[in-house]
């Protein structure tokens, strides 16, 4: 294609009015011709102006609904995630909320884990104490199948475990007592799990003088200052501990 011929065709080209063969030839020429490229750059905006230089027409109000329905019915966007209006509209909101939930969950979990860890450490400290003694607890007539055991250290506290304690009504709780020569001193409350098992660690209550026994009684929920209910488990403290 000669330059003169090409220059003639540029106006037709920007109007998209060349036959495909001519168009290819022209494009090949323009690629090597600065003058034609400049001409193309000057005329292209004229054609683009024709896209908007048209009489204004008002679309019917009902068109919006029909167009959007047709689009949504067509299918989800190509190869992307499924339609999710909220997901796209609220990304920062959701991301921040998710981050807070995760952080709170993490803190809660970390907190729980560290509580469990310190409980385990307390148990080990008691079980390995030089002054630890073992107290076997026997099921009493109201609960003959129940058994229990306490590892008690006068210096560090006690680890209590029990199995097959009868289920409690909501108004009742088990309470663990040091039975001393001066009376019973509460060590704490025991709420067994569904199977009647329980493992708990308690600090020593103040004022334990030469305990003679440990006992579990049934008491009103919340516990009482001195035992009032039936004994469920009782075990004598060995002389070495007392």
């Amino acid at each position, binding site marked *: 294609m000669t330059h003169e011929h090409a220059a003639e065709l540029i106006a037709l080209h920007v109007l998209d009015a060349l036959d495909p063969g001519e168009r290819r030839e022209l494009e090949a020429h323009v690629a090597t011709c600065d003058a034609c490229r400049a001409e193309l750059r000057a005329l292209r905006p004229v054609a683009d102006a024709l896209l908007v230089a*048209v009489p204004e027409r008002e679309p019917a109000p009902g068109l919006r609904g029909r167009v959007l329905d047709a689009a949504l019915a067509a299918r989800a966007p190509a190869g992307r995630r499924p339609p999710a209006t909220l997901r796209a509209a609220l990304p920062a909101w959701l991301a921040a909320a998710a981050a807070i939930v995760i952080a709170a969950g993490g803190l809660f979990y970390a907190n729980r884990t560290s509580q469990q860890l310190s409980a385990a450490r307390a148990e080990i400290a008691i079980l390995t104490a030089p002054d630890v003694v073992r107290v076997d607890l026997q099921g009493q007539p109201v609960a003959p199948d129940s058994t229990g055991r306490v590892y008690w250290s006068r210096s560090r506290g006690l680890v209590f475990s029990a199995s097959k304690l009868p289920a409690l009504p909501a108004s009742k709780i088990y309470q663990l007592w040091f039975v001393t020569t001066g009376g019973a001193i509460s060590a704490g409350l025991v709420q067994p799990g569904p199977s009647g098992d329980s493992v708990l660690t308690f600090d020593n209550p103040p004022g334990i003088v030469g305990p003679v026994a440990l006992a579990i009684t049934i008491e009103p929920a919340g516990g009482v200052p001195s035992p009032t209910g039936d004994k469920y488990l009782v075990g004598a403290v060995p002389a070495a501990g007392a």
Partner: protein
Amino acid sequence: MLDGRAVPLTLLLVTAIFIAAVLADTSDEHLLERITNGDEGALGSLYDRHVRRLYSLAARIAPREADAEEVVQDVFVRVWTLASRYDPGRGSVIAWLLIMTRSRALDRVRALRARPDGHNAIDPGTIEKATAADDTAEHHLIGAERAERVRSAFERLSAPQREAIDLAYYGGLTHTEIAARLREPLGTVKTRVRAALMKLRDALEERA
């Protein structure tokens, strides 16, 4: 740790991020990005923003209301399903939409013309001529004020010049087809189109 003061502060921060995200999401490019992600609201926003221009162009090419509406619907279905194909390097979103509208509208009038019962039946080979022509070019749109100048310059063209541009750009005919339609020599059509385009260019470049 999430203490009593940290919670309201965090909520405030979250709200601020949300508002900022909404405000930042108003460009055409952002709307298209959200459409790519399946955001139906963004499609509605894009429609509200541009439908008048697209409909006007569609109606210029396919004047029957039902045809122009069909074209607009076709364009938005394509936007919804093919938004990821938009290439910002080749022009603005509105230019992309307008070029797509022209192309779909020309397809529609060609299909109508090609019908056996349609008057003005033309060579079926024309339908083969893809309207995607020239889509590799970079397109820049002009403002409303310059558009109006081009539009009134178009009205001032001589009737034969107007007809030539009309048949080419809004009719989708090649210059060979235009010459055949007008029963005029090819050279005459070329010269006429070129002269008409120069006048429009002068109007476009005129200082207001």
